[in-house]
């Protein structure tokens, strides 16, 4: 920020400049770690860093205080260079209690900074965390730079006189921790102070307490000697423009709103709440002044069916869900396919199977969205690659849906949906409009043929209300051109192949697959979806290390880009990293008969860059 110099406080001690810093704040679900992390993220972004975040919380609303099950964490990397992931190893870990400490310490780099609230390490706390010994003095933390801070006590002191009881005073602990971290990385307080006064404007005593705690934390760092050193991460070089932070689900919602406007449509969003997709519904429901209609259905089937009805009515109809909800939509998606009406089905994937790991991320629904319907039922499938990319991806999904008159599936995941990154704000005028044609009333005597085809095999989107275009559609096999029910054997095969061809035709309208790096060499890393950042960074580093490796990241999973065969041909080996047991790998092996190898992680967590670099090193060997 331009006025950074003035406001930032002159530090008193040694300062070390870093290219990037990865910090994780961990505590109880109730400790406000998500808020703390978000503040640190925004402040860092405003300071010109590139940032990437990874919130990680339990699926219980509030698991019992102090237990391992209740630990909630927020990781952020802020950097002076482009980054694409929230970072692998932690440079600093802030732990508010023993459970949080022991469940996260293994990610802290040796020599890394560990800040703990030592007031939270009483025997009862240790017991809650199933600890027999106190990690603070059993030597297990020897290889870290441990900084014990009596946060509870200091926070209570700080807010003294405001007449808050201990219960409320202790709620400000996270602001104390925040202040400390801000000092450690030379961050300004003003963004957070502004946020604090806006958010708690109606509760002045709370706002004041938070502010005091924040400053107390900062001052603690400044005045005490416990920190021999503090750090600075200079601004990153960005393309010029206006920037903001955006979360994946938020970008998805905004992209939907923009797509509607760009195509001259009203947005109908029908959904049933499910983690981690619910925030799209929440976000959209806030923008009624944009003419957005959100419909919380009684279940996912109803949501999908309402979307079909809204699409028939001529709206931009969209639903969003996660794995178990998608499983319920498969029958109705088949109807949407048979009706050849445009709609978008968003799947923010989570850990499966069944209820699985609701709050964890995974990429294991690719085959489900491709094949989870009865009969031969091909649908286009796209995937987002980063939080901000959700905005562009969903606009593209809608563009394809209306151009080809088909439901389109867009895959996101919990990591993208809840993650955040800086987003270069576009000017709405610069976004490409999405043309849509609806047939008008026919000329006298002219019959309307609902299953007539255009150049890409799309059928007309005739809207109820248009005189003379009355027609009936349904899920039984249709006669070519007329759309009448037809059980004729040859017609059935013709229509099955026609529907498949229509989806294949998309390959002619989408960009050719780009390769990041040389067009040929030892190893191609082929990835899709939320693993983009880790794969991209890993490949870059290996290239810098002189390895013969390139990266191709698929946005289009069905159909594949027209040139994918050639792309694969260019390389001796193909490595496909996925957060599943090898789903894209299966498709590639079948289609291109290449012996692609998989790097598969199924832990409910994203890849770390090192994992992929290692696989690359083995792969090129």
């Amino acid at each position, binding site marked *: 920020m331009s006025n950074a110099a003035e406001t930032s406080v002159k530090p008193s001690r040694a300062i070390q400049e870093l290219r990037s810093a990865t910090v994780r704040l961990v505590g109880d679900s109730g400790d406000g770690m998500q808020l703390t992390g978000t503040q640190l993220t925004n402040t860092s972004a405003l300071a010109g860093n590139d940032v990437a975040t990874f919130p990680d919380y339990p699926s219980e609303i509030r698991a019992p205080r102090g237990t391992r099950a209740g630990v909630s964490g927020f990781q952020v990397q802020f950097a002076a260079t482009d980054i694409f992931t929230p970072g692998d190893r932690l440079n600093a870990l802030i732990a508010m209690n023993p459970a949080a400490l022991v469940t996260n310490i293994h990610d802290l780099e040796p020599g890394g900074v560990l800040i703990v609230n030592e007031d939270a390490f009483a025997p009862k706390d240790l017991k809650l965390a199933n600890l027999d010994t106190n990690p603070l003095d059993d030597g297990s933390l020897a290889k870290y730079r441990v900084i014990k801070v009596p946060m509870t006590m200091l926070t209570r002191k700080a807010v003294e006189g405001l007449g808050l009881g201990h219960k409320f005073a202790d709620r400000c602990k996270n602001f104390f921790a925040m202040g400390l971290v801000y000092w450690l990385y030379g961050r300004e307080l003003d963004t957070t102070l502004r946020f604090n006064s806006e958010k708690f404007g109606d509760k002045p005593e709370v706002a004041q307490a938070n502010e005091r705690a924040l400053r107390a934390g900062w001052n603690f760092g400044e005045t005490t000697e416990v920190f021999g050193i503090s750090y600075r991460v200079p601004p990153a070089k960005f393309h010029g423009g206006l920037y903001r932070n955006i979360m994946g689900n938020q970008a998805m919602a905004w992209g939907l709103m923009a797509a509607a406007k760009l195509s001259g449509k009203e947005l109908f969003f029908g959904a049933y709440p499910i983690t981690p997709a619910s925030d799209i519904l929440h976000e959209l429901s806030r923008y009624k002044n944009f003419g957005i209609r959100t419909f919380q259905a009684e279940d996912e089937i109803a949501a999908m069916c309402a979307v079909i009805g809204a699409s028939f009515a001529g709206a931009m109809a969209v639903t969003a869900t996660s794995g178990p909800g998608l499983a319920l939509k498969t029958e109705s998606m088949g109807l949407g396919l048979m009706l050849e009406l445009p709609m978008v089905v968003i799947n923010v994937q989570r850990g499966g199977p069944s209820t699985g790991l609701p709050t964890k991320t995974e990429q294991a629904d690719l085959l489900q969205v491709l094949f989870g319907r009865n009969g031969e039922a091909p649908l286009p499938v796209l995937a987002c690659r980063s939080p901000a990319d959700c905005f562009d991806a969903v606009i593209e999904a809608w563009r394809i849906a209306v151009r080809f008159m088909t439901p389109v599936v867009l895959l996101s995941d919990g990591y993208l949906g809840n993650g955040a990154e800086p987003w270069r704000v576009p000017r709405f005028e610069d976004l490409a409009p999405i043309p849509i044609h609806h047939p008008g009333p026919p000329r006298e005597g002219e019959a309307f043929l609902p299953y007539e085809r255009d150049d890409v095999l799309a059928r007309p989107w005739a809207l109820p209300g248009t005189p003379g275009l009355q027609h009936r559609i*349904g899920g039984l096999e249709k006669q070519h051109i007329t759309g009448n029910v037809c059980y004729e054997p040859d017609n059935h095969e013709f229509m099955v192949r026609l529907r498949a061809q229509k989806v294949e035709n998309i390959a002619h309208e989408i960009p050719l697959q780009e390769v990041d790096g040389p067009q040929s060499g030892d190893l191609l890393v082929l990835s899709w979806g939320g693993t983009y950042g880790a794969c991209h960074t890993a490949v870059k580093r290996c290239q810098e290390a002189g390895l013969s490796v390139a990266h191709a990241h698929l946005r289009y999973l069905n159909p594949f880009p027209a040139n994918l065969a050639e792309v694969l041909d260019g390389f001796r080996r193909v490595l496909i990293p996925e957060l599943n047991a090898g789903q894209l790998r299966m498709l590639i092996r079948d289609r291109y008969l290449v012996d692609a190898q998989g790097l598969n992680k199924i832990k409910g967590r994203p890849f770390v860059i090192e994992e992929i670099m290692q696989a690359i090193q083995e792969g090129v060997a």
Partner: protein
Amino acid sequence: MATAELPTLTASDFASDQDVRWCPGCGDYAILAQVKKVLAEQAIPREKIVFISGIGCSSRFPYYVDTYGMHGIHGRAPAIASGLAIAAPDLQVWVVTGDGDGLGIGGNHLMHCIRRNIDMNILLFNNRIYGLTKGQYSPTTPLGKVTKSTPMGAIDNPLHPVSVAIGCEATFVARTIDANIKHMGMVLARAAAHKGTSFVEIYQNCIVFNDGAFGYATDRDQKFDTVLELEHGKPLVFGKNRDKGIRLNGLDPEVVELGKGVSEDDLLFHDERAREPCLAYLLSRLRYEDGFPEAIGVFRAVEAPRYDEELNRQIELAQEKRGPGDFNKLFSSGDTWTVP
């Protein structure tokens, strides 16, 4: 287009080009005829009308009317219609469903559609059997009935469609009979006129798999004693010579003979606009097998907020309060920074 100037249409103008494929003698034919008649009598052009159905013999209905239509999937018509009605409030939306489609697999959508009171007309063709799949029992099949899937007789207590609808806050509930053409026409017209979800149960004879299920209510000699036509504000009188009535004894209805010291004023009077649906519910419990006439006509018709209308109101309100959406404003809201 001709229809644009709202010419007076006839029932036959609503016939589609598809040949009707129900079994000869199926009760669905009579319903189709009445629906077309009612459509012709209202001043709404064909293109502003949409029929949505699920799967079943009854659900073939949309193919046979020259309006917009969708033959959906099994049980989901009310959900499809909800999205349609919310997205296009200017259309008249009809749902055609069966006892299996609407109360079997589709019961939940029916329930939620009704409680949201979204503006549409739901016609449930109750033939007390699964017709299209060739004769399994349905949620309205009486206990003990032998069907393909119950060779020793059905053992599920049947649901009563009207009771179910009332149980989930219906604002318009009616019942009629395929064989009673004039009455059906009246009920369908009332349903079409009602704003909000209109739910109509139609007793329908499946001549192939459940012939005579409603014989008691259609038999020309019996029907006056087995069927009671509800009229708003009128006492509950029935019988060939209108010499019988329903009287309330506490909360228990009883059949009484008029005359012999009982006058019409002693009878229960129908009030379709009652604030609470207790009367409507009570009437839905009158069953032939318990020695009561079964009520047909409009059980309940009240005005209540509608989801579709309220949603649009919220949108207008939001636009008044916050102005129409401005994307550039939205994008640059909150914390932003500029890179030179």
